[in-house]
């Protein structure tokens, strides 16, 4: 009983809390990183060097009036932020932070579940996430959110195809759909898949940017064009939920990219014996470090690049990424059969 | 409270009920999009059946057929919605009773 129900529940609680806290502080990280890029200081007033800023933000958002527009579709308007938040959170169920860690003498696997369709589960979960945005656009009963909703759904569906192609390539490489299995396969192959599959790596990263609505693909929420896109009409905690969902999705994409391409919890050069000192650092720290690098690149890109236009985005997705993805899949499969 | 263990019959009843709801939807509603959705419900009922039998017989063939059903459903939805859009452009209506130009 303890091991079948209590332990997974405990892990879920810990991971959810960790995710929510890190998401909250990612808002601060984003503001700080972009501020440094832009030769500013960023938030400095709340706490030392502004470190308590997210808490102030959270209090502000909680205390704000939760406005529902009169002509909005009230139920859908309320459900939409939840629908976009939940998939972002349950995606963490299959992400392996480490194979095992010893906590108080117990050897505990550091993932909630290692299901044999882990990767497909992730894909299907992200495909649910698009509902939040479409529904928010529809329910607000306002033109800017509607345009954003249409943009977002088209964008997410198109880039999902490219990303899924890449994931299938990775499945062909590793021969398993399990996230833990993919890391093990990289250990056995003596190499991170980022070096074997650079095309897939790049496409997954670009697709990840697009799927999380991050710059330069942040069209659905382009403030300068659509006055905030699908969350134009939202305020207070419901707005915060959209925000948190976006950041949680960033972490999910980073974590998935880490697992698939950077060897998950494996230390650099896991098969080189004389680097054994690196084993001193626990695997989950390696995992978090690699994930953090991705997150940082996300922010860095946002600070650097202008925004794509809608039709250019679609062209990039359909005419470049998807054909490249299919070609990559075919080459991977062919080589896998031949070798 | 003790519940009787779940047998394939339970799944079959569930599937039958869902199928019946689908029939009611198709027959009663006049909005063509809802009718299409009711058809999807019926297809799902069939899939539950297939999966239940697959489980009962320890044989994955049922699931394979369920996947084919899903593929057909996708094709049906794409073409069906295309027809609806084309129709809506010309007639500005979604009511099946008004779709009678082919009637004699």
């Amino acid at each position, binding site marked *: 009983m303890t091991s079948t129900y209590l332990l997974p529940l405990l892990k879920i609680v810990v991971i959810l809390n960790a995710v929510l806290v890190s998401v909250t502080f990612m808002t601060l990280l984003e503001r700080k990183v972009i501020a440094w890029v*832009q030769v500013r200081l960023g938030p400095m007033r709340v706490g030392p060097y502004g470190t308590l800023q997210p808490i102030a933000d959270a209090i502000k958002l909680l205390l704000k009036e939760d406005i529902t527009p009169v002509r909005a579709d009230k139920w859908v308007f309320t459900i939409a932020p939840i629908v976009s938040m939940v998939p972002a959170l349950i995606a963490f169920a299959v992400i392996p932070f480490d194979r095992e860690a010893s906590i108080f003498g117990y050897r505990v696997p550091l993932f909630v579940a290692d299901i044999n369709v882990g990767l497909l589960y992730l894909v299907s979960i992200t495909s649910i996430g698009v509902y939040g945005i479409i529904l928010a656009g529809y329910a607000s009963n306002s033109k800017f959110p509607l*345009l954003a909703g249409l943009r977002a759904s088209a964008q997410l569906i198109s880039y999902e195809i490219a990303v899924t192609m890449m994931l299938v390539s990775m499945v062909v490489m590793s021969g398993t759909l399990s996230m833990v299995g993919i890391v093990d396969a990289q250990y056995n192959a003596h190499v991170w898949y980022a070096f074997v599959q650079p095309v897939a790596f790049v496409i997954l990263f670009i697709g990840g940017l697009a799927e999380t609505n991050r710059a330069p693909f942040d069209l659905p929420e382009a403030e*300068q*064009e659509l006055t905030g896109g699908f969350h134009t009409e939202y305020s207070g905690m419901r707005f915060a939920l959209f925000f948190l969902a976006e950041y949680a999705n960033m972490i999910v994409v980073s974590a998935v990219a880490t697992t698939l391409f950077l060897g998950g919890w494996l230390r650099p050069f896991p098969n080189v014996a004389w680097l054994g000192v690196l084993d001193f650092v626990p695997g989950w720290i390696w995992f978090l470090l690699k994930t953090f690098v991705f997150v940082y690149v996300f922010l860095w890109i946002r600070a650097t*690049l*202008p*925004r794509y*236009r*809608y039709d*250019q985005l679609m062209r990039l997705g359909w005419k470049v990424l998807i054909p490249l993805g299919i070609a990559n899949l075919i080459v991977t499969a062919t080589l896998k059969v031949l070798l | 409270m003790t519940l009787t263990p779940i047998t394939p019959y339970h799944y079959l009843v569930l599937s039958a009920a869902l199928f019946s709801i689908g029939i009611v939807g198709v027959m009663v509603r006049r909005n063509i999009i809802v009718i299409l959705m009711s058809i999807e419900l019926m297809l799902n009922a069939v899939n539950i059946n297939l999966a239940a039998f697959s489980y009962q017989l320890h044989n994955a063939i049922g699931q394979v057929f369920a996947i084919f059903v899903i593929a057909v459903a996708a094709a049906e939805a794409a073409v069906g919605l295309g027809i609806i859009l084309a129709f809506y452009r010309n007639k500005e209506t979604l009511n099946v009773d008004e779709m009678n130009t082919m009637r004699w």
Partner: protein
Amino acid sequence: MSLFDTTELTLNMGPQHPSTHGVLRVVLRLDGERVVGCDVVIGYLHRGIEKLCEHRDWQQIVLLTDRMDYVAAASNNLGYVETVEKLMSLEVPRRAQYIRVILAELQRVASHCLWLGTHAMDIGAMTVFLYAFRERELVLDLFEEYCGARLTYNAMRIGGLPLDIPSGWDRKVRAFCDVLEQKIPEYEELLTHNRIWRDRTTGIGVISGADALAIGLTGPALRGSGVAHDIRKDEPYAAYAEFDFDVPIGTAGDTYDRYLVRLEEFYQSVRIIRQALDGLPEGPIVGKVPRLIKPPAGETYHAIEAPKGELGYFIVSDGKSNSPYRFRVRPPSFCNLQALPRLVQGHLVSDVVALIGSLDIVLGEVDR
């Protein structure tokens, strides 16, 4: 979205919209995301400046002109005082002329910095926004040191200047010129050679030179279409005839060319400022101006090349009262804005904000 046939959607952008540069209201008719029609609604910032000017005496008007194009107040001042001087046939000392040129060119740099920042921000490059504002801040510091104000300078007087330059100011201006020349390549790196930026701006809002002239475009927006029209060269005023500078022109007449033209104007402004500082003559800063300014009866039109285009003043004096009989401004933003409905035709919503940015309008000047 063109796959689906939807009826036209009317989208009201502004007057509260983050990228209409103030209180512009654009009513777009959309087919999907494609613009099929565009109405520009203005007047939300109308303060009746022209009418106000007819009830102020001649020196007081300088202060009102500050409030038109509030990001290029010194250029407004310059246009006005030169018009009155022309009306009165006043002689302005050369030192004042030179300082006026320096101020006007610094102002051009400041105005272009603001344009660059907001334009880049509209297209999503948020870092350039802050970089450009960093440089604009330096110009504002220089202005503050010169006249004490950072935005509305009231920096010129009929017949000359209110103040001579503070000691050491010229050195600071030179230092600023060096800084600016180092910083512009940074913008170029972030934008000019950026694939996304080029995709977003090339081929957007193309207008031919002839059309641009016909519609009344002036300034960088006209030069982007390949017409080398610059009042500083064509009808030199102040001391511009004595300086050596080029008029950059574009070829394609699209948003990217207008961007390149303005970017090149940074360098040209720096060039003019350096020459003016080098040749800054000694002497008085105010000419022989009567105590009571009362231009003879008559009317005149005088235009200068403001950062945004041709800024013209048409002033009628009846020769009796202490204020102009009629005061009319030809603001560059207003005339350039006329091109917007035509430019956005057939482009996407995202391009509308890019084009508003590309025309470089200031609503204070459009509405006056």
